[in-house]
């Protein structure tokens, strides 16, 4: 992996720059650090920053931009005739990349010569067989245009990497040179270094924004692509979900949304009463030792990974419910995967979420309101029911909304516990599926990302993102508004 070595080289240059800069500053001060404007390390850091930061920045930009350029050139090399019916340019390009990787690996293993990899012609020699013999995964017969493109792809990437290494090291050296040139005893090194560090801090803080932008862009572009292949009215209006990668699939989002809401509803029916009563008891009744034991114990439930709840739903709750409501019991349930199975597990997961949020909110109700109520002769439970809960209501609603958003976005529990069939049904003992579970099933496996059946996952992701974001913003708005009343 030459990139790692490149980073190591740049870092080594930075260290060298640090030492050189420090020595040079000391020299210019005649060996007496009191004559320097800043501490000697700042002169070293100045040079090191100038060596490392622009070089690494350039490298990152280059690494992102190079595949773009190479792809566009290679894509231009493939004539339209080489793109078979039912296939797409993207698929052919993926094949080109695979062939190029295969050639690379085969050369690395010594199965074929570099000469052969560069110049072989598919119509004269059987490249596919040679590659397969070398243990490379080649899915289809490599045709001449694909092979030509793959060879071009290899060459361009190789030269691109070489130029990049050269330019990056050159920039690092120039940085050292620049830093050293300006180093003398009157140079305000600390101010410069502190300015650059501040810039780095700002950059780090902006990564959060970049992540959001990345999420939104990756969802939007693929969603637009999906709606170009599949009508939006069908997506939002159709009542059936039956994807088939062969084509002719119906991709209606409504059954998935129904499954999502139904499972979340079951989860909330479990979590909200238990969580709320637990919070009320812990904050109003419980003695100190009980509180200090029960609260962390309940919060352990929140620290358990969701895959554990998924397995718990599939292998413990499911069989348990099946023995009670299955064919041997009341006969309502036909398999262990069902809405209640997933909903129950999700409800258990959400209990600590609801309880600790409500606990905070109940504790924020001022003591004076309790005292006033007690003074009028109310019992504790009357105070809670008629004074505290109404006062805390907006916050509790906010907590429930946050829990809902959690439930909607939960994946592992529904993937393992809820089933795979998309249904519009009212029976909670039937298997249903959710938006998240379908995102997983449409995007895992070797599907090509150009078909509507795979792209629909991005549209589903977009739906999910907007729903959870909306819920969160709304919940935070309610919670904030409430808090202002008492602060």
């Amino acid at each position, binding site marked *: *992996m030459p990139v790692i070595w490149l980073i190591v080289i740049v870092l080594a240059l930075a260290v060298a720059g640090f030492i050189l800069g420090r020595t040079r500053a000391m020299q210019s001060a005649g060996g007496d650090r009191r004559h320097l404007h800043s501490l000697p390390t700042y002169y070293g850091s100045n040079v090191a920053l100038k060596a490392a930061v622009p070089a690494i920045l350039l490298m990152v930009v280059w690494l992102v931009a190079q*595949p773009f350029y190479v792809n566009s050139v290679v894509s231009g090399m493939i004539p339209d005739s080489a793109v078979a019916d039912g296939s797409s340019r993207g698929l052919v390009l993926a094949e080109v990349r695979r062939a190029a990787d295969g050639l690379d690996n085969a050369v690395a293993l010594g199965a074929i010569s570099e000469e052969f990899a560069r110049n072989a012609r598919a119509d004269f020699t059987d490249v596919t067989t040679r590659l397969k013999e070398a243990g490379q995964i080649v899915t289809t017969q490599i045709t001449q245009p694909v092979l030509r493109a793959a060879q071009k792809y290899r060459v361009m990437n190789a030269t691109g990497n070489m130029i990049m290494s050269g330019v990056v090291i050159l920039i690092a050296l120039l940085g050292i040179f620049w830093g050293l040139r300006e180093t003398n005893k009157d140079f305000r090194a600390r101010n410069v270094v*502190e300015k650059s560090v*501040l810039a*780095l*801090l*700002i950059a*780090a*803080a902006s990564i*959060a*924004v970049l*992540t*959001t932008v*990345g*999420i939104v862009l*990756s*969802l939007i*572009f*693929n969603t637009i692509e999906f709606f170009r292949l599949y009508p939006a009215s069908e997506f939002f209006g159709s009542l059936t979900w039956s994807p088939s990668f062969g084509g002719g699939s119906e991709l209606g989002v409504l059954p998935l949304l129904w499954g999502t809401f139904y499972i979340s509803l079951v989860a909330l029916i479990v979590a909200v009463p*238990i969580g709320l*009563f*637990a919070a*009320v*008891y*812990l904050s109003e*009744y419980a003695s100190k030792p009980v509180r200090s034991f029960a609260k962390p*114990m309940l919060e*352990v*439930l929140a*620290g358990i*990974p*969701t*895959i*554990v709840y998924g*397995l*718990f739903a599939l*292998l*413990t709750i499911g069989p348990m419910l099946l023995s009670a409501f299955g064919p041997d019991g009341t006969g309502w349930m036909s398999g262990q995967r069902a809405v209640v199975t997933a909903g129950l597990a999700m409800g258990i997961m959400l*209990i600590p979420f609801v309880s600790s949020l409500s606990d905070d909110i109940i504790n924020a109700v001022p003591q004076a309101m309790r005292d006033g109520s007690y003074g009028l002769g109310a*019992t504790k*439970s*009357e105070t809670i029911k008629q004074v505290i809960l109404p006062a805390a209501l907006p916050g509790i609603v906010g907590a429930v909304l946050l829990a809902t958003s959690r439930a909607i*976005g*939960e*994946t*592992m529990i529904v*993937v*393992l516990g809820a089933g795979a069939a998309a249904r519009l049904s009212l029976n909670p003992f039937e298997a249903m599926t959710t938006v*998240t579970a379908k*995102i*997983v099933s449409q*995007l*895992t496996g070797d599907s090509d*990302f150009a078909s509507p059946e795979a792209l629909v996952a*991005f549209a589903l*992701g977009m739906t*999910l993102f907007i729903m*959870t*974001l909306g819920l969160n913003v709304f919940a*935070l708005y309610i919670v904030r508004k409430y808090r202002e009343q008492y602060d």
Partner: protein
Amino acid sequence: MTDASMDTPQPRRAKTSLMTEDARTKKRNASEKRFQAYGIAAIATGLFFLVVLAFSIVRSGLPAFTTTVVDVNFTLTQAQFDEAEGQLFKTKAYSGYFITALQQKLEAENVQVAFDEAAIERIMGKIGGTLREYYTANPDQLDEEVAFKLNAASRVDGYFKGRVQRETLQDSRFLTLADLDLVDALAEAGIVHTTFNWGFITGADSGVDNPGGAGIGASVVGSFFMMLVVLFLSLPIGVAASIYLEEFAPQNRWTDIIEVNISNLAAVPSIVFGILGLAVFIQFMHLPQSAPLVGGLVLTLMTLPTIIISTRASLKAVPPSIRDAALGVGASKMQSVFHHVLPLAMPGILTGTIIGLAQALGETAPLLLIGMVGFVARGYPDGLIGGFTDPNSAMPAQIYTWAARADQAFYEKAWGGIIILLIFLLTMNIIAIILRRRFERRW
């Protein structure tokens, strides 16, 4: 004019006393008791779920840590070896020798049970092939007694662990009731017994057909490399971002945008980060699929908000007097932060980081999308760089893979994997608590 009502005799009020409860008070007190009971019931239900969860994890997971082995001391003479190699069905000859030896041994132990070659093969696999492989590789072991430790077949293993029961067993080509008699006899003679399964902790995943050989070791390594990526990216970036937002950020639009983004990212479902990873790192940047590097990058983005929120809290907890004192003796703003505030906030930052890492360690959904599930991690990655870029699995992804195979024997492995995962999480959380207890400073 007299008021008539003044003369009308008042109905006598019932005699009441504070010492006796009237009906209304009784009702109110009962409702008070009821309400309290609801609270207790809610907490008890929560704790009950926790106990059930812990119980089912331990009960279903512990069998994964034991395995059933067949201990046989067996001697093959040079003459027998030559004779077997000369035959047409070589492995059959080996099985014959083995069965004769086993019969003799059982007779010596006074165990009466009849069996044939097929039964032996059902119980401990293709024994002839195993023996032949061993002796052709180690010809110097001929004529010497060798202690063989053979793994019993998965169904026999299940019989020992209660997965397979006599009452419900259907005779099949995998196992018959008569075989169970033989297994019982062998167990009595001490030939078949269960031991600790080191292979589960150190091994790699096996194929769909061999649940007995599946281990979680390779995916622990995968998770470890992923956590390295998360640690080395999210700690510096998270700390830098928090320092900026807490100490330097001016009140302007950009700061507001960053703040809103961080609090929103903390609430984005993890699967959406998986979509981001798939679209950006794999589709766009063509990083290798299933690589711990990509998993680490995705989990870094997911953990960053958590780390930033906790780091900001611990920076906020350092009193302003520290900053003022540093500025007072002539430090620059940057120096006061890096030389004084940051070291004092470090324990809190580390605690938050460890908790963020623990969260990332157990996260599964984003890993499904970047291809960590379709991949069967059959071996350890080679070398340090390979650890980051070679396809591998991670603990939660491995658990999901096993659970998705829909096989009782693999379910057992999945529960066992969960025990290992929870041990890691518990250790990390305990370290975080100890750090907090030991270094936390109240100002």
